[in-house]
């Protein structure tokens, strides 16, 4: 099978359209960021508290809101978690803005939220642990201590296994929220085991699946660090490409990658996705991907310059893009499919992450022929216009140090 045999498209002739398109995309992103007074930073970067609560039945956001207000919690938002693969999830995120420095302030928000939930939705029992928050080790500890199956000293492994079964039952069959310990009889726990668990655990009709508390100092430090580290990485790439090709190529590649990151950030703003630490990892992935794509084309240009000494530089670039076109489309298409699957099936934790990659792969592929290559061509033309040489615009005028 072969999709692309001989293509002969004039890519560089359309450079103006590409620049205009990029300008529009960048402008839209910048406008959106400006309109929203900056990007939507997740808790990782702005500090604050997020409590992720999963309910056994669809929760009433109003009840939760009233409960929180009664506990004197202000400045919070409640966001129901909805998911393409699971549109009716019984999950909400309670976000709380950062109030102050210090350990007490950090803890206060979380404690107030937990108190409010317990007050409105059924309380925990003093001296017992929340079964829905317990991991296998906590459960097996209790079982070993109580030994409901009278297994004696060698019971450790058996109880560890049982605890794992119970946790799997809770998380898979009950979506992480077990409302009654008696239900565990469905997961091969006998009456004695359930009674032993009841001594140490309570259940309620919600489970805290995730709590994140980030101090404001950490947030700004992380933001600074992410930017600095990315700039270092870009600098490293620039030097390497300049060493292997010519400095213009390095500069063009880095500019193109910059362009990709900016457009992706703009789309994050337009679609109201939050920037979190995992999104940074996705942005780094996109930087790597876009750079890879650009280098493949540059590499071909370098090779063709030796083969087509008499041709104008523009033609060489066009030829190189055309020659690598089938590879570009195949690779991008396949990688795009991969991240699209991740975007659809990856669950809410991976949503923003895979969005960055879906966008990034499209933009990263486009920028290789739409931005990086035209930039090199533009620079060459500008240099040749300045020169009085008779061999204007030919490959012979373009020295390449290394091949």
């Amino acid at each position: 099978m072969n999709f692309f045999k001989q293509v002969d498209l004039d890519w560089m002739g359309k450079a103006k359209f590409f620049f205009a398109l990029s300008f529009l995309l960048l402008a839209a992103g910048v406008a959106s960021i400006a309109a929203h007074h900056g990007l939507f930073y997740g808790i990782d970067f702005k500090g604050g508290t997020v409590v992720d609560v999963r309910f056994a039945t669809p929760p009433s956001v109003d009840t939760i809101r009233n409960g929180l207000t009664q506990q004197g919690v202000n400045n919070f938002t409640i966001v129901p978690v909805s998911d393409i693969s699971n549109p009716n999830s019984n999950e909400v995120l309670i976000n709380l803005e950062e109030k102050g420095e210090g350990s007490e302030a950090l803890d206060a928000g979380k404690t107030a939220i937990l108190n409010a939930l317990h007050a409105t939705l059924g309380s925990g029992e003093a001296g017992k642990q929340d079964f829905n928050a317990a991991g296998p080790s906590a459960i097996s500890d209790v079982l070993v201590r109580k030994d409901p199956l009278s297994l004696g000293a060698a019971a450790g492994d058996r109880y560890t296994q049982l605890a794992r079964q119970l946790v799997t039952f809770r998380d898979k069959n009950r979506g992480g929220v077990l409302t009654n310990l008696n239900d565990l009889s469905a997961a091969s726990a006998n009456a004695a085991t359930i009674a032993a668990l009841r001594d140490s655990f309570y259940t309620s009709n919600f489970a805290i699946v995730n709590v994140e508390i980030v101090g404001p100092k950490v947030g700004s430090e992380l933001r600074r660090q992410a930017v600095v580290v990315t700039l270092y990485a870009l600098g490293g790439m620039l030097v390497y490409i300049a060493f292997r090709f010519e400095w213009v190529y390095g500069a063009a590649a880095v500019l193109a990658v910059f362009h990709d990151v900016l457009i992706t950030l703009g789309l994050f703003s337009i679609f109201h996705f939050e920037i979190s630490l995992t999104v940074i990892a996705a942005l780094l992935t996109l930087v790597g991907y876009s750079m890879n794509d650009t280098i493949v084309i540059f590499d071909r240009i370098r090779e063709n310059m030796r083969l087509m000494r008499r041709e104008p530089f523009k033609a060489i670039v066009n030829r190189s893009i055309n020659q690598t076109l089938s590879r570009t489309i195949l690779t991008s298409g396949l990688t795009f499919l991969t991240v699209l699957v991740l975007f659809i099936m990856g669950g809410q934790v991976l949503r923003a992450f895979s969005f960055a990659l879906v966008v990034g792969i499209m933009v990263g592929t486009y920028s290789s022929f739409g931005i990086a290559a035209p930039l090199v061509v533009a620079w060459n033309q500008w240099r040749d216009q300045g020169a009085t040489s008779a061999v204007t615009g030919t490959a012979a005028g373009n020295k390449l140090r290394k091949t």
Partner: protein
Amino acid sequence: MSSNLKWKAVFIIAVILVCFVGLIGIPDAPKSLAVLKSNFTNRIKLGLDLQGGTHLILQVQVQEAVSQETDQVLDNITKALRDKTIRYDELRKLNDTQILVHNIAPEQAGTARNLISDQFPDWDITPAPGEPSGYLLTMKASHIADIQQRTMDQAEETIRRRIDALGLTEPLVAPYGQGEHEIIVELPGEGDPNRAKSVIQAGGQLELHLVVDSTPYSSEAAVMAAHGGVLPPNSQLVQGKSSASASGLQSAESWYVVDRVPVVTGRDLRSATAVRSTKNIGFFDVDFTLSTDAGRRFGPFTEQNIGKQLGIVLEHRLQTAPTINGRIDDSGVIEGQFGEQEANDLGLVLRSGALPASIKYLEERTVGPSLGADSIRHGVQASIVSLLVVMIFMVVYYRLSGVNAIVALILNLIILLAALAYFGAVLTLPGIAGVILTIGMGVDSNVLIFERIREELRASKAPVSAVDQGFKRAFLTIIDTHVTTVVSALFLGLFGTGPVRGFAITLVIGLLANLFTSVYVSRVIFDWHLAELPREAELSI
């Protein structure tokens, strides 16, 4: 098959075997499939974001240790100057790292300077600006860095001992970040951070100070009023413990004026245990014993100060201020109206040694076990589906050569996972991003090579030379793309923390593995296939 090719095949099989051993151990018998599976899950360590658990980042207030050192030196200099009967007006701590000596008698200035530079080599002495015979003592930067490092090491060690005492599975305590004096604590599978936090938080900074004023004050202002706005020299203000306020009611404040330098600190403790209180029935006290060395200091000190109060200061809060009734050599009791658990934990904290400085929480994350499981399930499902899509496409598009690409991809993943297992690296969500980029670039390498081979075939080259040229030409490109990405990943790994580093590590391993599989292994398979192929046959690509 030529012998050259044979050796290459042996090498590849050896690599695969090493990887399998890394992932599942040496299979001793076919029956132990479950053992192999559990070996696998044990060797691939999952990050907290995938496994669930508690993650804390705390900052050690190292400046406190520096300040304490300055207090100690101030005390020692006072003694040294007194021993040599050097006269001066005032010796004062200027800030955490500087001490000012006012007005040394001019004829003794030389002696004083020599004395200080001899006995306190970690301090620089310079004439104080604007004062003819005043001197400024500044702690050397190298010494400050030393103290900070020591404090960090000690804090890390202490926290590790305390966390270990809680008996959780595989806790992690490690330095974090760059030069911000942060420590990361990770408790896999622990859904409730509170007990761990309170044990760490307890700080256990125990200090015994002589109380200067026998009656406590109700506010800071009252203290200042009683002393005419200036605290007595070498004394400090300490707030008393607020009585239990579960109801949230603000209890009455109490303030004490105590000696600046503690007689005994937590470092001098030999043991500490919770005991039933004899005074407050139903509550618990903590008994402590001092080391012999500290006892030698404590004995004479208590003898000299009979009738005075001794403040027991825990975490900058004065717990009790018992009156010294007689000489005490090596034991004491903290009466704090503790509950049993509280007293036990306090005993644990004191036994495990005091934190050399207090700590501040910067970050707390608790990932519930079910969320982590969700992420894994979704991630694994998505990866499998997308791998299948890629594989099917490769076979349809490149026919037999597509199989080559699939072998390379799968081998790449196996090597990547095995390397993670060998290095004990942790797989996190950002790490999975690195894996995705690795797969993307792996596919890309194969596509680059295959497209190149097709081009050569179109130029009517024979299969053998087309494969040879295709690999040679594509190799240049592949090296450039890989080196560029590895360069950037190295920067991310060196300067990044946490998630960024996790991404970089998997990416570097994945790319190196990819160079091996897409170029070397794939080439060997091609060569082997070509050797079997009849001379006129076409290459299936």
